[in-house]
């Protein structure tokens, strides 16, 4: 089956006085129709830059250096600004990080939802528009009375639900959710994620969930892509990755997580994340990697390689069994 979204060799650099910061470096991944893909990584690994690049919202000094983002066969990178504006929301939508800051504080919720529709030339009468807003609010389990309220009258969870309603207002095929619940309490986080899950199933959406919370990933995605220092290091079925992580970074990341079974065993990952400024060729995890061998020092970046069915890893350790 053709993937709904296919990212091919995408690189996004931020050009600074000191040189290019390679925030996203040669990333390729596929998103199948109806699939939920988690993109996980630590702060500064480039995951939010990925989200912005997929929406083509990278601003200078950042630039998509090369690569393709094929949405239903159309390369978003090559679209004109106007074509891209029409594509956003109607084909691919973003649920931004921190809903508190993305809603306009002096505009009623109804107008903020309608705004997106009007911008895409949806022609509806006033009453039809109101019915549409009511329907959208109900679909995210909000009281229709929220329509006439201002953002400050809503709790964080409710504001986040409004952002979900806006994201689905034009029936997009793909939704990029960038840490949609990071500022919410655990109970509310779970409720919002379950709403997103239900909508995803009802509307047949494909979702890329971006975040750093491995717990949330384990609960909410089918496939997991692990990013480290601007590069994709592992991708596969979420259960396979948790059960048997392949990349040494993923292995360490999973060993740091608190589980219910084993209590009090804690291990951090020693060392710090590398700077992406003028990032060299070669494995960037090698200085922190407990499994690094001499061959890992070569100035050649490991590429993603399918080592067993549907298990992809980019690591020199797996390059021998060709």
């Amino acid at each position, binding site marked *: 089956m053709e993937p709904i979204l296919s990212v091919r060799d995408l690189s996004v650099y931020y050009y600074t006085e000191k040189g290019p910061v390679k925030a996203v470096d040669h990333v390729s991944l596929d998103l199948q129709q109806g699939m939920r893909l988690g993109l996980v990584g630590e702060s500064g690994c480039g995951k939010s830059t990925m989200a912005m690049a997929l929406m083509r919202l990278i601003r200078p000094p950042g630039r998509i250096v090369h690569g393709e983002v094929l949405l239903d066969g159309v390369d978003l990178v090559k679209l004109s600004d106007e074509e891209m504006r029409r594509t956003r929301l109607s084909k691919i939508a973003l649920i931004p990080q921190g809903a508190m800051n993305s809603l306009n504080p002096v505009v009623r919720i109804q107008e903020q939802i309608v705004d997106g529709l009007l911008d895409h030339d949806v022609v509806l009468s006033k009453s039809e528009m109101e019915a549409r807003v009511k329907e959208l609010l109900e679909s995210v389990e909000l009281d229709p009375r929220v329509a006439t309220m201002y953002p400050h009258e809503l709790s964080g969870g409710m504001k986040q639900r409004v952002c979900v309603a806006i994201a689905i207002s034009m029936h997009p095929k793909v939704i990029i959710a960038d840490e949609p619940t990071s500022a919410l309490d655990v109970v509310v986080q*779970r*409720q919002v994620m379950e709403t997103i899950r239900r909508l995803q199933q009802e509307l047949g959406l494909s979702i890329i969930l971006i975040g750093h*919370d491995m717990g949330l*990933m384990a*609960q909410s995605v089918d496939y997991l892509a692990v990013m480290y220092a601007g590069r994709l290091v592992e991708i596969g079925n979420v259960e396979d990755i948790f059960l048997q992580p392949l990349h040494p970074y993923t292995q360490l990341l999973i060993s740091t*997580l608190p589980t219910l079974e084993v209590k009090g065993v804690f291990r*951090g990952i020693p060392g710090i994340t590398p700077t992406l400024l003028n990032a060299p060729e070669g494995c960037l995890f090698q200085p922190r990697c407990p499994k690094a061998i001499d061959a890992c020092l070569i100035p050649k970046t490991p590429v993603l390689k399918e080592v067993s069915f549907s298990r992809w890893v980019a690591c020199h350790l797996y390059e021998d069994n060709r």
Partner: protein
Amino acid sequence: MTALLELREVTKIYVSGLVKKRTTVALDRISLAIGTETPTITAIAGESGSGKTTMGMLFLGFLPPTSGEILYKGKDLWTCSKEEWRVFRREVQAIFQDPFEVYNPFYKVDHVLTVPIVKFRLANSKQAQREMIEKALIDVGLRPEETLGRYPHQLSGGQRQRITVARALLLQPKLIIADEPVSMVDASLRATILQSLRKLNKELGISILYITHDLATAYHICENIMVLYQGSVAEAGDVDAVIKDPQHPYTRLLVGSIAWPDPKRKWGQEIAEYRGEMLAQKTTGCKFAPRCPRAMPICRESPPPLYQTNETRATACYLYEGNPTLEGREISRVLRQ
């Protein structure tokens, strides 16, 4: 035995508004004693608005209580002399959530470490000062040569947070109040910082109050837990018992919402019974009753007392009526001391 620091029936009410006064009860008759004989880690868990940060502020002497007492070595903290406050400021240390705001970006990180030494006259020479700082950094797993002489922006969030732990350590405190110390730190460093807190507790005998919304990490490093809901205790006791078999319906909701990093341990169905988010509302009964799937008529009439359900736990819920009740400060009986 006199506790090192004790909140006794403490209530904190915030008043806002100039003309039309609005009051918010942040904490409602809370008692908790922290002893020093066996150093423990106690979690104060709850969601935003539960009063957990206010509780930390009261323990740190940053805020006076509206009613009730805060006892430091048996004496009312707010009537202590200047000299006693000085000792208090050294013995009770804080670690805050945001490892960015603690630092002044114009000073090297050494500054946050030398100020307390100078202020409390802990070292009598530059050499001794340097040795103390190096030891504290090593205790939290940092290499002094890679840390000192740098500016805050040159260090990662995890390193900065560990320096604040080292700073607390320098003063050889008896109690550390850690308010969400890892919520802004990446997973890989989260474990390292929690590990250093645990090490301080086990090896240096420092008691820790771990204020958090994250029950999964509380479960891993604490002995005791107190779950707050809108300023009142919902449940308290041994952390294993509370997390593995929560009694109070609110604790069940919280524990049921933990996103365990295990695709095989998926969120269950129990959450569907609960009413959605509620904003704080005035109620004469149990504060959780409006959301509670098991609320009974009595729950809406008067607030439930704390029932001791076994030796190591207590629950403020009428479902456990029939068990012996605990008066406020008797809560310490179910906590490991």
